[in-house]
């Protein structure tokens, strides 16, 4: 009876996971539809801009027409989109307008650097906010709590790029720790990732601290107290798992901001990743690159959100039983 129930629960989990994966793929697809749908709004002639970006000057109408034909821009937008989509499924993201190299190849060269930096930053911010929030919640209104609250106020009021800029200028360069011109290696990623993590952790600490305090004042915490449990036991066994679930959801949302903030972060740390690649493409209006960037960002965002949903599903029995 229980074994069957367990199996059914697990089966439900697998079904829910499959459903979410399907939704995730659709989401990534929808994201690229958005960008293609805005394309007609873009001012100016694409073919002309491509030729200009390749350094050609004094363009004749004939040259532009020929380029437009060569780039396949004469076909209706829907056909262009389907053509592009067909390529995507074969790993072909089109050709860069400027370098004329395959976009997928250029992206694969830069993606690891970005994932390395953002992944490490994410790790730092989760670890830092966990430590800070637990310390703050365990000595509420004591001096460690006050100090941590001051840090969270300041951190939340400094946009990541401003904090990174100041930290880089006054601490890293000022005291000559680390290198400014970074090559994408784990050791070089350490300092930038720590700086990003320290800033992100501020608002996450606020959130987790509030969640922990709320859980410490909840009915089940009060009952555990009345049964003779110690404060530390209540904090770690009851409050933390319960406060962690909404915290996890908030992290999922913040990952979007982290991905979206990558160009800015990479510009500040001169990090040769995907964000820096996008900035080059933005100035040149290199559409295939922009589209590829959107697709990759959407895929990584959706993947991160999916992992977090599955984690929440595994942690929370109420979510699990809703699914079946």
């Amino acid at each position, binding site marked *: 009876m229980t074994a069957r129930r367990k199996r059914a629960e697990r089966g439900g989990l697998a079904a829910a996971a499959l459903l979410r994966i399907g939704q995730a793929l659709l*989401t*990534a697809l*929808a*994201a690229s*539809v*958005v*960008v293609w749908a*805005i*394309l007609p*709004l*873009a*001012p100016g002639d694409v073919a002309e801009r491509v030729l200009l970006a390749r350094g050609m000057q004094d363009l004749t109408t004939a040259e532009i027409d020929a380029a437009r034909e060569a780039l396949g821009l004469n076909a209706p937008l829907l056909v262009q989109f389907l053509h592009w989509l067909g390529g995507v499924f074969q790993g072909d993201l089109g050709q860069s307008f400027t370098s004329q190299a395959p976009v997928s190849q250029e992206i694969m060269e830069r993606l690891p650097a970005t994932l390395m930096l953002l992944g490490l930053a994410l790790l730092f911010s989760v670890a830092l906010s966990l430590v800070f929030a637990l310390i703050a919640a365990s000595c509420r209104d004591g001096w460690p709590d006050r100090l941590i609250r001051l840090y969270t*106020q*300041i951190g*939340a*009021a*400094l*946009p*990541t*790029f*401003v904090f990174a*800029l*100041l930290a880089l*200028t*006054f601490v890293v*360069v*000022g005291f000559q720790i680390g290198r400014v011109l970074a090559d994408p290696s784990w050791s070089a990623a350490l300092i930038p990732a720590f700086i990003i993590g320290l800033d992100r952790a501020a608002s996450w600490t606020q959130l987790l601290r509030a969640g922990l305090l709320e859980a410490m004042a909840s009915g089940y915490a009060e009952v555990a107290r009345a049964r003779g449990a110690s404060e530390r036991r209540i904090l770690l066994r009851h409050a933390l798992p319960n406060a962690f679930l909404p915290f996890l959801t908030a992290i999922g949302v913040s*990952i*979007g*901001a982290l*991905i*979206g*903030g990558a*160009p*800015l972060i990479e*510009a500040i740390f001169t990090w040769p990743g995907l964000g820096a690649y*996008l*900035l080059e*493409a*933005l*100035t040149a*209006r290199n*559409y295939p690159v*922009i589209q590829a*960037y*959107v697709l990759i*960002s*959407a895929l990584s*965002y*959706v993947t991160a959100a999916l992992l977090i949903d599955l984690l929440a599903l595994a942690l929370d029995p109420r979510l699990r039983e809703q699914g079946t």
Partner: protein
Amino acid sequence: MTALGVAGAGVGRGPVDRRVLTRLWRHPAGRVGLLVGGALLFVAALGAVWTPHAPDVPNYANALKRPSLAHPFGTDATGRDMLSRVMDGAHRSIGAALLVLGAVFATGLVVGTLAGLAGGLTDTVLMRIADIAMTLPGLVLAFAVLGLLGPGFLNLLIALIIADWAWYARLSRSLSLDARRRPHVIAARMAGIPGWRIVLGHILPGVALQVGIVASLALGGMIGAISGFSFLGLGVQPPAAEWGALLAESRLYFALAPWLLIAPAGAIFLSVLSANLVGNALRDCAAPQRR
């Protein structure tokens, strides 16, 4: 019945209970936020019409001066007074954030409540569009729109509005759907109150307050985002001043004049701080306080 005489005067009063504002002022952090924010708004308004020195006239003889009485935050590489530049940039940085938030708040509220209350096909179509806009992290969508439209202050505002409106529409929709099922709305319907009066009197004020609180909590992030895009050269174009753009300019000379970073970074810090303080305090104060 003197109390009832007073009661008559309150008919047209808006959704924001005057006591919420009183509580906001009594909230210690809220008061600090209001004071700092008010001072910044004053500086922004002042900076739009008057600055101690001309903000965008170069004076090469005066380049990269240390902070002094005449130039409290120094001068930049072309000799322009940093204080004047920051004051001049204030109305762009703060104004743009308020403008974008105002626009997404209004669009979101109208689209969301319309979808929630009309239901049916209107709801389906509007919410599918919103869903698609929400598949991307807001900043990624903003980058994509900027990439297609090209850099520029106006394009940046458009990009941020496109990136954010759907979240507010979703929120307004779920809040208005929730409000529609509230007992007081059902009671009004059964009393025979016409639909438009229920929407204006019962539903919209509550939804607007909730969405407004969310928008006020987002103000700090929006100020940061706008200065970030301008830092990358995708927003305000030179020679116009904007805090993010000023940071980018100052950054080039940090080895020679690191103090140049102080004023724009400080301005961003103070404005985001005051926005956060007011937003958090507003959330605390608007929550119903039951005795």
